[in-house]
């Protein structure tokens, strides 16, 4: 990755009015839902203590709902709070959720995997201009220099199948697709070079498993990688176990991951995890013309048998 060669623009991608109007629309709907008792809580964001930050919240009263915001700092994938891994949230009853395109793709996946029923959740979709990247300078507005890499080539800015859409999308300039470029660079490597690339990255992994904890699809009650009878994956941060963990993670997300890149954002070692996710997604697109998370699917390509499946790989 060549970080010095390119100059990034610092002009704001969306004006202040856009963020305000989205925030207002969310608040208005959240207050209405809570006042009417239609939901037990609204999963959304409130401003963080420091400027330029935000954090997830479950607003349970109309007063709390008045604090809800939407800003470029609203990076978290809130779908996480609806998985079984967060039972205390679900136990409150029917919930509303503020969902960006990324969150929606995860929600569609959860619906398809029997983790959620559509009637149990009220979705406030956001016409999303994008959010900050992991190391963005948050004193700047959302701009070419600060926007997350995944947002540069987002295809799900306009939400679909939601109960409400908050805000209208401003006109956005086309941004250079850095992830796609990186993926192309990776694909151009020889297998040996690619192996060396990942080996280097995986060797730095400290197995904090933040990538697992943040992932809306890692909802297993006991992760395969925590089991010890038999132990499939070595638990200490050593190269063999690290590689096994990342391969298991990539395989388990193939055909499911919606590309929210939360794993990459939370990784303290800056391992380009979303690159691996994107590669798997690209394979599925090319092999089966399948994109995860666009609609809730009963069966994905990896769990379905069709009579006309490609069998050319059987020699």
């Amino acid at each position, binding site marked *: 990755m060549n970080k010095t060669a390119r100059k990034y623009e610092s002009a704001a991608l969306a004006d202040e009015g856009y963020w305000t109007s989205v925030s207002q629309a969310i608040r208005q709907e959240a207050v209405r839902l809570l006042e009417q008792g239609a939901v037990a809580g609204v999963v959304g964001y409130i401003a963080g203590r420091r400027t330029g930050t935000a954090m997830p919240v479950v607003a349970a009263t109309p007063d709390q709902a008045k604090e809800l915001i939407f800003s470029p700092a609203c990076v978290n994938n809130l779908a996480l709070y609806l998985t*079984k891994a967060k039972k205390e949230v679900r136990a409150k009853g029917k919930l509303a959720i503020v969902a960006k395109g990324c969150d929606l793709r995860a929600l569609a996946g959860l619906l398809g*995997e*029997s*983790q959620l029923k559509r009637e149990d959740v009220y979705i406030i979709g956001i016409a999303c201009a994008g959010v900050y990247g992991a190391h963005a300078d948050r004193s700047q507005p959302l701009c070419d220099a600060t926007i997350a890499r995944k947002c540069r080539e987002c295809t799900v800015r306009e939400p679909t199948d939601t109960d409400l859409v908050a805000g209208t999308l401003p006109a956005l300039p086309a941004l250079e697709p850095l992830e796609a470029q990186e993926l192309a660079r990776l694909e151009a490597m020889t297998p040996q070079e690619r192996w060396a690339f990942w080996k280097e990255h995986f060797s730095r992994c400290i197995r904090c498993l933040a990538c697992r904890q943040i992932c809306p699809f890692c*909802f*297993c*009650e*006991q*992760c*395969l990688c925590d*089991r010890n*009878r*038999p*132990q*499939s994956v070595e638990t200490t941060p050593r190269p063999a176990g690290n590689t096994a963990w990342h391969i298991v993670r990539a395989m*388990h997300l193939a055909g499911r991951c919606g590309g929210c890149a939360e794993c990459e954002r939370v990784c303290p070692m800056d391992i380009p995890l979303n690159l691996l996710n994107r590669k798997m997604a690209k394979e599925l697109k090319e092999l089966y013309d399948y994109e995860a998370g666009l609609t809730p699917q*009963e*069966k*994905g390509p990896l*769990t*379905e*048998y069709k*009579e006309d499946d490609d069998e050319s790989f059987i020699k």
Partner: protein
Amino acid sequence: MSRIGVFVCHCGENISRTVDVEKVAAEAGRLFGVAYTCDYKYMCSDPGQNLLKKAVAEHKLEGIVVAACSPRMHEKTFRNAAKAAGVNPFLCEMANIREHCSWVHEDRDEATAKAIDIVTMMVERVKRNKKLQPITVPVTKKALIIGGGIAGIQSALDIADSGHQVVLVEREPSIGGHMAQLSETFPTLDCSQCIMTPKMVDVVNHPNITLHTYAEIEAVEGYIGNFQVKVRKKARSVDMAKCTGCGVCMAKCPQKKIPNSFDKNLGFRPAIYVPFPQAVPNTPVIDRENCTWFKTGKCGVCQKVCGPGAVDYTQEDEIVVEQVGAVVVATGFQLYDIGPKPAGSAIEGYGEFGYGTIPDVIDGLTFERLASASGPTGGKIVRPSDGAEPKSVVFVQCVGSRAREKGISYCSKICCMYTAKHTMLYKHKVHDGQAYVFFMDARTPGKGYDEFWRRSIEEEEAVYIRGMVSRLYQKGDKVVVMGSDVHIGVQVEIEADLVVLATAVQPREGADTLAQKLGISYDKYHFYSEAHAKLRPVECATAGIYLAGACQGPKDIPDTVSQASAAAAKVMTLFARNELEREPIVAKVNERFCVGCLACRKVCPYGAVEEKEIRDRSGNLIKVVAYVNPGVCGGCGTCQATCPSKSVELDGYTDEQIMAMIEAL
């Protein structure tokens, strides 16, 4: 478990030729937990099994590894022996050192090393095996027969006569199949209709047989003893309960020029029709593609003339669900067509024979219809082109069959005999005519068969020319046959009035699709595969499904009937029991860790996975998990491979066992 016995088999010389069995036994004895080892020439024999039983008693063995052949061959044998010796049969496993080792390797040292590895892995697996108890499932004593030709009819009658219910499904509007189309049958020349139609009537009158004609198999689910079959009954447009079979509708139908496929398109039929006068059931169907009412919405003559008001244009396809315990597949054959084949097909047509465009070049079944008293010509043999009586007829054998260059290497088995029969039928009807036969070999293995063939030459004066035909072409009103006579080494040219091709027997179109619905295997030509070529010729590898007739391979009528009765006997054997024991190798869900993503349900090919709600004592839902119905589970392990959290495992093949096997290497 720590007292394991390892029994190494020589399999005559099959294993000991390439594997040092004594060394395998000695090495196995050094493994932790192995209490006894030995080797023996034939472990599966009576003394071999006694050896095993004696060792269990003497050495207090708690687990058994038999290093011999494939478990598909003798697992049951040794598990029974283990059971007899007082060991839970599922603590006995086979280490396959024959198919997986001695048969596929040549180097003795390497093969021996591999055999030791295989045995070591199995010892590790047996250490972790659990005592399992067989699962019993009820048997639905009702059989499904697919195909209403002579094979299906014979099976249906045999099973029904034994007192069990039978459902017979036939694709065409009438049962009877190919045999109903034949004129006479070899080697006795008795009339096919005379011996076939009474059986057809028996079927329709039998109290134990439910007949679905003009119907196809939509879907099959379940397993031996408990199949659930969806049958699509195509819209007949005639109410079977009301129709009396008077035939007025057929007589009055203004559409009369539709080629009759039963007569190989030699004659015509109306749009509302029965395929042939002796059809069973004698209820017409409306051919919606050719019916004026269905094409234009006008006409309605049949409805007007029908006395009982049986004609119903609004009838729709109906899905009938049948619960059955066994399935007999008897879908029969079709004849190879010499026309051009689609690109990419492994089988080629015959351009040198005009791709079927010469009108006086016909196939054997067309000749049968010409010779049949109930055929379009009333049994008079004439040429399709001008209706003249052919004075010279050339029969060509092995068209398509035994022609590797054309894509089919097998012998169609029946052509030699029916061609001999054709020459006789021809001579009996055209006394001054001359029959010529081009043949490669005459294959007549059967009771009275060779005598029959000799008779066609010696008494009926057919001229047999050993050699192939290279080209057929039209010259004036004759068809020129260019061939060779390899006995005298000359090229032969015959100007014939009619040419009859003995075209290859092929499985029915769509045989592969049906096999996929049933979950049975088929060969590259789409003939269905029997479980064992010699010892289990009428059973499929899929339990509870049996084969009868030409769908399994080319067969004549006597063989077909024998196989059909054999399949019926197998079904009766199954139905003699009220319950079946099933192997308890089934998947179990760890409900503690299952999060109910139900990926297992998506991939399960048996439909064995259900949702299960776990509730606390006051009835509050705690969570939803997957549940595997042990009666339905086929033990394939796909769920285990799919489950992201490894919360479902197959007994006998747990991850722990597989890992232990790998680590033992």
